[in-house]
């Protein structure tokens, strides 16, 4: 079983839609959960991070962690064309393990 699994998409939504991105992980020892955004030909850029179960909100973005199910989500409200990118979940214990990344396109 892979350490981190993420549906690579691609995912295409109209502007203004709510986007849901998800990952599952296998190792309950993982402590920290992050979402990175990667624009084409750029390095990953940290979007949000959390270490506890529950929700964490930052503007239009909400990160959700369910440790009992080993499931993490990122919700984007009122999605914008500028949100078009690849979103990578990352799980951290001593080192980082990335999901495959979900390519999101928000169409105007």
């Amino acid at each position: 079983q892979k350490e981190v699994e993420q549906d690579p998409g691609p995912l295409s939504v109209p502007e203004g839609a709510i986007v849901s991105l998800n990952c599952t992980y296998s190792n309950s020892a993982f402590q920290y959960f992050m979402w990175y955004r990667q624009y084409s030909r750029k390095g990953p850029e940290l979007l949000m991070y959390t270490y506890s179960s529950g929700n964490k909100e930052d503007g239009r973005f909400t990160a959700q962690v369910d440790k009992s199910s080993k499931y993490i989500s990122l919700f984007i409200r009122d999605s914008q064309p500028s949100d078009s990118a690849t979103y990578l979940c990352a799980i951290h214990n001593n080192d980082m393990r990335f999901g495959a990344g979900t390519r999101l396109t928000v169409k105007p």
Partner: protein
Amino acid sequence: EPEVTQTPSHQVTQMGQEVILRCVPISNHLYFYWYRQILGQKVEFLVSFYNNEISEKSEIFDDQFSVERPDGSNFTLKIRSTKLEDSAMYFCASSSQRTGNLAKNIQYFGAGTRLSVL
């Protein structure tokens, strides 16, 4: 805002040649990392480095690879005798810590070096 810088942005080399990819981490960070992303695939951990030593490495990081911090600012990844399958984006990252306080664990990435092995 401090950032991780990588040079060159694109490196083209012949199979069998040695390449050195360069990174300047954020100045007060102590932990340094290299990752690889083959086109269309996930970002893969290669190696972490602290106090002039490798802390951890993946199975990808074999004898072909080496890392070095030759001075107080640069962090390099050397690939000896490159193979076609080494073609990928290579990302450098740095963090101020590696365990403990989550905020200090956060890894900041450079824009990457695209390595093309012909």
